[in-house]
């Protein structure tokens, strides 16, 4: 018989067998189709949500052929085919280069018409304070803009005194006919004439009107931009524009991109930077998922193989070859895998279709049209097929080598386990431990080494499962009847039991490893947390307030927190508002005479009150980490007109060298240095919030500007309500400020959620593995159950046996998995919690015992209870068995 014909026969037999044993077939279908379905649905949603280059053109270009922008003040540019995928200014910017004007751009493109577009953000006063709104200035009546916005009601703006807003802005209190109250001294006040939605953003507040309607000035970073109409813009033209200092998003280039080699090399190198790690991670995930699915589907094939054992033995005694025996089983994998893959993909597309609106609801961006990525889905379907075939391989192999005589004489057990595989298993676990240790101690790519060795360790563990299951059976002699029967029966039918136990173990290993990683990461966060202020104290900072505004704010804040001290903090102006590019900010470098320059006086400091240089006549209360004696010395020094310098190293000096410098957005300079009398006061660096205190007379003499920089709120535990009220008061006068309240370390909700999700996922997979094995075991155990009934077992006994079975599989799997999960779990905490400072030996390990206990003890018990609850309590009759 040719191989092909033999395969055809095997497939036909498999199809018939699958039809005959519906229960088992459905089980395999579910095990494989479910993951295929889930991944397909996710893939469809992701593809739909992703607005790929061509799909996004209309919402970015409207009806234009290209969007030309000058992003870097006219410096020559390099760009990817889509400038949003990457663009950078080229080296060697000519100093006197002027940004290109509209006429030049139009010339390059052959004299096409250009429509100017400006974008930026504006601040809008609303009922609750001030809101940030994304603003676009462009003539919306121009047909070129069709597709940028959808007009819902009202009309398009006709001149620069009119705008449209989206629903989000309308919901903040503006209706058609209202005048927009924009923040800014000479901001325009346009009238809302329509409600229009951006075709890109769904939830962000958006406003749009003609040029001039919103007061957006082109700046160096967001220079002028034009929509161009008048025919395709070629890649050559784009490059020409790049040379001029502009980038271009061309419809024609994106729709039909030139070969990759045409893109500038710098940009190409950029976009492919992280691919390796990404691919490795994906390979790892796919391997683990494949393993899990194979293990979950494995038991069903094991049972199929054993049910066919007699047929295969007869075949063998009639001269059949082992290969033919194998094909008979693997044929089942092919048939069921194909059906499951097709079913999973089809249902997954449907599920994705249903999910899209749900996910859209949570997303701030509009999705593209419904998208089915067929190439991906082909891969996913193949994954399903391969996992089914793989799941049938081991049972097929065992079936092809079975002891013909034993089978024909009716013995039901599997053959003894070989010794070779557990030894290999131990070796693999050893390799996993070594790899994890290597990953823990090595530098950069440690996580990947650990993840890879985790897979190796799990594979090793799977090879150990048969020995462990046999050992448990040997120890079962003292157990009550039901667990004793379950443990022994599980060991007798290893091909069925081992994959189920391994599936549970692999799941638990993953859950435990990730759990340790997440919890340790959280422990690091908590351990390295540095309080900026005493508990419950707060600080208001802002960068653009005048002294009178600060005084007003002082009053307002004091009124909101009546039982706290509110102090206006004076300091060197170290930061200025981004809104005032010409305002100078100052920096003061300090050095003790005789202390080398590379040894800073203070190795660590956090600026809490807007400036690291405070100006005061005596030691400000808000400075922490100073002893009472130090505080007294500081007060005395300041009274004498000396500068107080905080330090965390021993300094023997009575003067300090001050080197002031200043800078604006685009200029900087040094000021004359000065050496002044100083007193060095020791400070605890972890609490340091300032580096020096200068008396007002001294800073005036140095001719350095000082001003209010912050409000310190202390002494009265700030409640969350007060925090909210103060924040609102701050936002009412500035949008460049904030209110920080020290609440200590705030445990991330996410950690708990991640733990719950992990435990939940573990629970589902464990339930899946346990239920499969239990269901199959019960159907296998029919003769035994019938016998039990005949010797007087009550019908309830079936439930006990089912629950015991689930318990054996769950506990053995969970214990093994937890043990193996500790290896990568502990290893990964080393690279994960190493910290940023290579000098500091940092490592945090926190094992989530409660979660592990839950997974190892509670979950198997719950699973067993569920099985006991839902198992049929009816014993089969002997008469019906044969």
């Amino acid at each position: 018989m040719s191989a092909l014909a033999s395969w055809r026969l095997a497939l036909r037999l498999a199809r018939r067998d699958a039809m005959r044993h519906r229960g088992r077939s459905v089980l395999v279908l579910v095990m494989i189709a479910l993951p295929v379905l889930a991944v397909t649905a996710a893939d469809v949603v992701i593809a739909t949500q992703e607005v790929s280059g061509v799909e996004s053109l209309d919402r970015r270009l409207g009806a234009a052929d290209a969007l030309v922008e000058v992003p870097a003040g006219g410096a020559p540019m390099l760009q990817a085919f889509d400038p949003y995928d990457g663009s950078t200014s080229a080296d060697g910017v000519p100093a006197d280069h002027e940004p290109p004007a509209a006429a030049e751009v139009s010339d390059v493109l052959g004299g096409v018409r250009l429509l100017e577009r400006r974008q930026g953000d504006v601040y809008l006063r609303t009922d609750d304070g001030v809101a940030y709104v994304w603003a676009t200035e462009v003539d919306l009546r121009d047909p070129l803009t069709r597709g940028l916005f959808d007009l819902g009601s009202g009309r398009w703006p006709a001149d620069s005194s009119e705008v449209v807003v989206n629903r989000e802005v309308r919901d903040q209190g503006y209706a058609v006919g209202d005048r927009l109250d924009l923040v800014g001294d000479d901001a325009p006040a346009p009238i809302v004439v329509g409600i229009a939605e951006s075709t890109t953003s769904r939830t962000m507040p958006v406003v749009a009107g003609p040029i001039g309607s919103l007061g957006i000035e082109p700046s160096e970073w967001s220079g002028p931009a034009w929509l161009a109409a008048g025919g395709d813009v070629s890649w050559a033209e784009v490059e020409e524009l790049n040379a001029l200092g502009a980038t271009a998003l061309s419809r024609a280039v994106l729709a039909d991109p030139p070969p990759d080699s045409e893109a500038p090399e710098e940009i190409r190198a950029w976009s492919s930077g992280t691919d390796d790690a990404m691919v490795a991670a994906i390979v790892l995930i796919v391997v683990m998922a494949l393993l899990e699915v194979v293990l979950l589907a494995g038991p069903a094939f094991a049972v199929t193989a054993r049910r066919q054992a007699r047929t295969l033995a007869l075949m063998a005694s009639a001269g059949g070859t082992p290969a033919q025996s194998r094909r008979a089983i693997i044929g089942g994998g092919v048939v069921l895998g194909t059906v499951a893959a097709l079913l999973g993909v089809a249902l997954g597309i449907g599920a994705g279709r249903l999910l899209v609106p749900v996910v859209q609801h949570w997303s701030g961006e509009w999705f593209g049209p419904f998208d089915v990525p067929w190439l991906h889905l082909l891969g996913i379907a193949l994954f399903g097929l391969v996992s089914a075939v793989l799941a049938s391989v081991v049972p097929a192999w065992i079936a092809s080598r079975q002891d013909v005589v034993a089978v024909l004489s009716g013995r039901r057990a599997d053959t003894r386990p070989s010794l070779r595989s557990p030894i290999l298993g131990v070796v693999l676990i050893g390799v996993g431990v070594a790899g994890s240790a290597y990953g823990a101690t090595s530098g950069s790519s440690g996580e990947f080494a650990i993840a890879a060795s985790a897979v190796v360790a799990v594979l090793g563990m799977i090879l150990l499962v048969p020995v462990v299951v046999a050992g448990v059976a040997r120890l079962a002699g003292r157990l009550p009847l039901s667990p004793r029967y379950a443990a022994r029966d599980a060991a007798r039918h290893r091909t069925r039991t081992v994959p189920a136990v391994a599936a549970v173990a692999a799941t638990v290993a993953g859950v435990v490893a990730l759990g340790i990683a997440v919890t340790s990461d959280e422990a690091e966060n908590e351990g390295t947390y540095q309080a900026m202020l005493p508990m419950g104290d707060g600080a208001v900072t802002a960068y653009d307030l005048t002294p009178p505004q600060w005084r007003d704010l002082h009053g307002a804040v004091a009124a909101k927190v009546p039982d706290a001290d509110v102090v206006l903090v004076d300091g060197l102006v170290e930061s200025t508002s981004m809104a005032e590019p010409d305002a100078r900010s100052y920096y003061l470098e300090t050095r003790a005479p005789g202390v080398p320059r590379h040894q800073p006086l203070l190795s660590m400091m956090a600026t809490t009150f807007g400036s690291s240089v405070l100006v005061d006549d005596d030691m400000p209360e808000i400075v922490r980490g100073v002893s009472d004696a130090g505080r007294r010395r500081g007060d005395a020094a300041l009274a004498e007109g000396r500068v107080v310098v905080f330090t965390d190293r021993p300094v023997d000096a009575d003067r300090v060298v001050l080197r002031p410098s200043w800078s604006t957005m685009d200029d900087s300079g040094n000021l004359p240095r000065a050496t002044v009398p100083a007193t060095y006061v020791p400070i605890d660096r972890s609490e340091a919030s300032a580096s020096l205190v200068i008396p007002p007379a001294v800073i005036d003499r140095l001719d350095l500007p000082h001003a209010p920089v912050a409000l310190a709120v202390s002494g009265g535990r700030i409640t969350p309500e007060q925090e909210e009220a103060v924040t609102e008061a701050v936002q009412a006068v500035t949008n460049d400020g904030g209110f920080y309240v020290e609440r200590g370390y705030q445990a991330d909700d996410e950690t708990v959620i991640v733990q719950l999700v992990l435990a939940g996922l573990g629970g589902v997979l464990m339930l899946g593995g346990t239920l499969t094995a239990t269901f199959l075991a019960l159907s296998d155990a029919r003769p035994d159950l019938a016998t039990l009934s005949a010797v007087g077992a009550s019908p309830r006994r079936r439930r006990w046996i089912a629950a015991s079975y689930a318990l054996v599989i769950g506990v053995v799997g969970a214990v093994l998995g937890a043990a193996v999960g500790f290896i990568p779990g502990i290893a990964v905490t080393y690279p994960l919690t190493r910290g940023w400072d290579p000098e500091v030996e940092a490592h945090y390990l926190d094992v989530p015992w409660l979660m592990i206990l839950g997974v190892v003890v509670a979950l198997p018990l719950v699973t067993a209870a569920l099985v006991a609850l839902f198992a049929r309590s009816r014993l089969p009759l002997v008469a019906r068995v044969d």
Partner: protein
Amino acid sequence: MSAVLRMAEVTRVHGEGATEVHALRSVSFAAHPGELVAVMGPSGSGKSTLLTLAGGLDGPTSGVVSVEGVDLAGVGAAGRARMRRTSIGYVFQDFNLIPALTAVENVALPLELDGVRSRTARAGARAALEEVGIADLADRFPDHMSGGQQQRVAIARAVVGDRRLILADEPTGALDSETGESILRLLRARCDAGAAGVLVTHEARHAAWADRVVFLRDGVVIDETGADHADALLDAGRIR
């Protein structure tokens, strides 16, 4: 002496309509303490059905089955299960031992299922194994025993805990004749010790071990030989 097993006008119909099969028709039958009754008949005559009804594994369509004076229909499924643990012992043609349990554990099953403490149950099981002559095999698994040894274990399981009714459905069917004889000798000895036995067989020479033979055909008792011959014939013939 009162009968351990009494079946009165028992009918069992499988299926309905066109596929209706009368496995037993109005059969009356009794087995007394110390008595081994052989039931004979061709294949399909209803022998096994009679035993499943006697053991409470199946219920009659009409008629009454009582064991030690208890109407099996009146005690519910749990009650019947308890009867099988304490009063009725079963022996099957293909032994029906549980392969995951050792010989002594198989024998201890009825006791353990009845809530007897594990240690006590095993002691009782060992005694029963001793009685059937294979005490040395107590810790073997069935897969590692010969057919005759397995059937001895099955008999030990059927008698353990002093059960007074032993139902054996072709217990020698899967054994060679010599081994079969020894099994029947064990059954006979058990009945001589006071139990009532019902032995289904289709081999006439096995019937020689019995005190009395009941012949079935198409679900009807057609003849009866032995001690209470006349009575039994009268019983069987009184059709209402």
